C-alpha cells in the first residue's frame, strides 16, 4: 500500500519531450580551456579541470566526449564507444548485471547511446589519487544517455570521483546513466558520485555491481544541489566469499525536489558483508530513502541505517528499509530514525555566539558529515572541497 502511494508521487517523465540532437562539442586538447562557468560547476561536482591530485580524467559534454586521459600507468580512461572498439571482450560486460528491458530508461539508453566512460584498473594497480569523470549537460532541454563500465581487476585498488553537472544556464534536462561495476577477486573499488544538477533536471541512474571473492565495493552518493527528480536503486551482488559492499548516501532536498534513492545488496556468497547508510535532510523537498538487504548465504552479515532530518514545515522523508533472509544463519539488521533538529543543540551553539541560522546550518552540515564514508584522507579532502562549494550555494 505504502509503496503504491510512494510510486504515485514520482513525477512521470516524457522522454520524447527532450531534444535528442545536440551540437557536437570539439575535443579539448587543454582542459584549462573549459569556461569559468563550466569549471565552477565541475568543481562543485568534485571534478577538477586542473587534474590536480587526479590520476586521470574523462569529461563528456552533452553527447560529445571532450576529454579522456589517464595519467597513471595501469589505469585506463576512455569512452565506452572507444573501449568497445579496442576490446572485443568488453561486449560481455554490457548489460550483464543490468537488464536492457528493466524499464523505459534502460531501453532508451540501449536504443540511443551517447557514449559514457570506461574506467579500468589493471590487475594489482593501486593509485593514490582517484580518476575523475564528469558527465556535463551544456545545452538546455536535452536528453543524455550514457553507459558506463568500471572494472577493478584482481587485486587492484581503484578510486573514482564522478561528478554530474550542468551549465548555469541549463534549466531542463534528462540524464539517463547506466553504470555497471565489476570488482574482481581481492580488488577494491571506491566510487564517489556527486550530483550537481539544475532545478528542472530529471535523473535516472541505473546501476549495478558484481563483487567477487574478497572484493570490496564502496559506493558514495552525494546530492545537495536542487534537482527536479532523481530515482535510483543501485544494486550490488556479492557473488564471492567474503565480498563486501558499502553504500553511503547523503541527500539534501530543497522545495520542489523529489529524491527516491535506495541501495540494495544481495549477499549471495558465504561470509559476505554489507552496510547501507543514508543521511537524508529535507528542507522542503521529498525524500524516499530505501534500502534492501537480501541474505542468501550462510554467515553473511549486513546492516542498514537511515537517519532523516526534517528542517522545514514542508517536505517528506519516507524511510523504507527492507530485510530479507532466505537461509538460516543470516545476520541482517536495520535502524531508521526521522526527526527534527534538537532545540538544545541549536541553543548550545547560540550560547557560543552563532545566530540561529548559523547554528542550524552547522548542525545540518554536521549531520551530513562525509567522514561516515570512511574515505582515504586524500579523497576525503577532495570530496570536502566539493561539498563546501555546494554548501556555499545551498545555505
Amino acid at each position, binding site marked *: 500500500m505504502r509503496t503504491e502511494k510512494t510510486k504515485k508521487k514520482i513525477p512521470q517523465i516524457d522522454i520524447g519531450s527532450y531534444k535528442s540532437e545536440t551540437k557536437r562539442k570539439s575535443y579539448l586538447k587543454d582542459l584549462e580551456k573549459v569556461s569559468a562557468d563550466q569549471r565552477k560547476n565541475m568543481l562543485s561536482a568534485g571534478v577538477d579541470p586542473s587534474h590536480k591530485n587526479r590520476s586521470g580524467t574523462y569529461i563528456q559534454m552533452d553527447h560529445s566526449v571532450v576529454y579522456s586521459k589517464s595519467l597513471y600507468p595501469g589505469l585506463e580512461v576512455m569512452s565506452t564507444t572507444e573501449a568497445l572498439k579496442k576490446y572485443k571482450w568488453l561486449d560481455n560486460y554490457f548489460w550483464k548485471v543490468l537488464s536492457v528491458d528493466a524499464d523505459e530508461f534502460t531501453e532508451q539508453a540501449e536504443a540511443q547511446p551517447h557514449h559514457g566512460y570506461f574506467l579500468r584498473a589493471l590487475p594489482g594497480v593501486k593509485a593514490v589519487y582517484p580518476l575523475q569523470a564528469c558527465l556535463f549537460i551544456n545545452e538546455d532541454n536535452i536528453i543524455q544517455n550514457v553507459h558506463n563500465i568500471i572494472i577493478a581487476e584482481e587485486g587492484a585498488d581503484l578510486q573514482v570521483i564522478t561528478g554530474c553537472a550542468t551549465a548555469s544556464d541549463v534549466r531542463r534536462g534528462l540524464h539517463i546513466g547506466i553504470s555497471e561495476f565489476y570488482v574482481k577477486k581481492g580488488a577494491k573499488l571506491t566510487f564517489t558520485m556527486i550530483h550537481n544538477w539544475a532545478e528542472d533536471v530529471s535523473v535516472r541512474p541505473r546501476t549495478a555491481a558484481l563483487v567477487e571473492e574478497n572484493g570490496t565495493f564502496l559506493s558514495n552518493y552525494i546530492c545537495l544541489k536542487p534537482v527536479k527528480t532523481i530515482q535510483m536503486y543501485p544494486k550490488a551482488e556479492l557473488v564471492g566469499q567474503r565480498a563486501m559492499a558499502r553504500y553511503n548516501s547523503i541527500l539534501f532536498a530543497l522545495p520542489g525536489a523529489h529524491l527516491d534513492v535506495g541501495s540494495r545488496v544481495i549477499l549471495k556468497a558465504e561470509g559476505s558483508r554489507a552496510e547501507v547508510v543514508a543521511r537524508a535532510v529535507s528542507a522542503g523537498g521529498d525524500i524516499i530513502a530505501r534500502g534492501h538487504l537480501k541474505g542468501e548465504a550462510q554467515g553473511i552479515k549486513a546492516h542498514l541505517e537511515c537517519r532523516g532530518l526534517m528542517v522545514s514545515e514542508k517536505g517528506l522523508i519516507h524511510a523504507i528499509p527492507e530485510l530479507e533472509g532466505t537461509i538460516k544463519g543470516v545476520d541482517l539488521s536495520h535502524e531508521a530514525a526521522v526527526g527534527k533538529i*534538537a*532545540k*538544545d*543543540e541549536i*541553543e*548550545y*551553539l*547560540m*550560547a*557560543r*555566539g*552563532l*545566530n*540561529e541560522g*548559523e*547554528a542550524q546550518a*552547522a*548542525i545540518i*552540515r*554536521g*549531520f*551530513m*558529515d562525509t*567522514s561516515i564514508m570512511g574515505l582515504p584522507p586524500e579523497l576525503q579532502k577532495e570530496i570536502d572541497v566539493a561539498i563546501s562549494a555546494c554548501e556555499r550555494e545551498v545555505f
Partner: protein
Amino acid sequence: MLKIENLTVSVSGKEVLTDINLEIKKGERMALLGPNGSGKTSLLMTIMGFSDYKITRGNIIFKGKRINDLSVDERARSGIGIMFQRPPTIRGVKLRQMVDVISKSGFDTDKEAGELNLKEFLDRDVSLGFSGGELKRSELFQLLAHSPQLSLFDEPESGVDLENVVLVGKIMNRILSKDKDSAALIITHTGYIFDYVKADEGCVLAGGRIHCLGDPRRILETVKEHGYERCIACERKRPKRKSRK
C-alpha cells in the same frame, strides 16, 4: 555587571524561580549553592536566555541594559558565556570548528588545546563519547575561546577526578583573569572548586528562592554541619557595599 530584579521564571507553566534578586559586580565571583532541584541551573539558563525558561516577571540587566528580550546568541555576543554541566552532543561538528567560530583573533587553538590535554579531541565531534573530565575540559576550552565578561559555570567540578579539578580550577582562573572586570556565577555542590578558585560571595538557592547571602566558605560550613535548612532559615540579606570600579 549583572543585576537580577524580582525575577520569576516558569518552565512548561511550572514556576521554577520566584522573585530572585541578585547582583554581581564587576570583578566579582559569586558562588551559587543549593540542594538538588533548587533552581540553580534554571537561573543560569534564564540568564543565558534559553527558550524553555520563560520570564513571567522581573528583569535581567547586564552592563546597564535590560536583556530580557535578547536571544541567546545576542547575549553570548554581548559578553555572557556559559560552561554547561551536561552539554548536548553535536554530531559532525568538530571541536576545532566550534573553537574557530567562537574565538577572537589571537587565540592559538592548538596551543590552548595542548594545555587542556584536548589536542586529540580537536577533530572529534563536540561532546561525542567524551568522559566526565573531557566534557569539562571541552566546555572550559570553548569558554576560554569565547572569553566572556560574565562567565556562568554549572558545577565545574562535578564528576571530575582530583587531578582534573586542579586543571579545571587553573583554566577557570585563566578565564577570569583575562580582564580585571571579569565576573562569574559558579554553581557548586561540594565547594571543592574553592580550593582553586576564589569566590567573593555566596548565596543559597532553595525552592526557587534566594535565601542567604554571604561568605561562601561559611555558608558551606553551615551546610555541612546543619544541612540547607539552617541557611534557608537564615534569610540573611546581602550587606550593602561600595561597587568596584
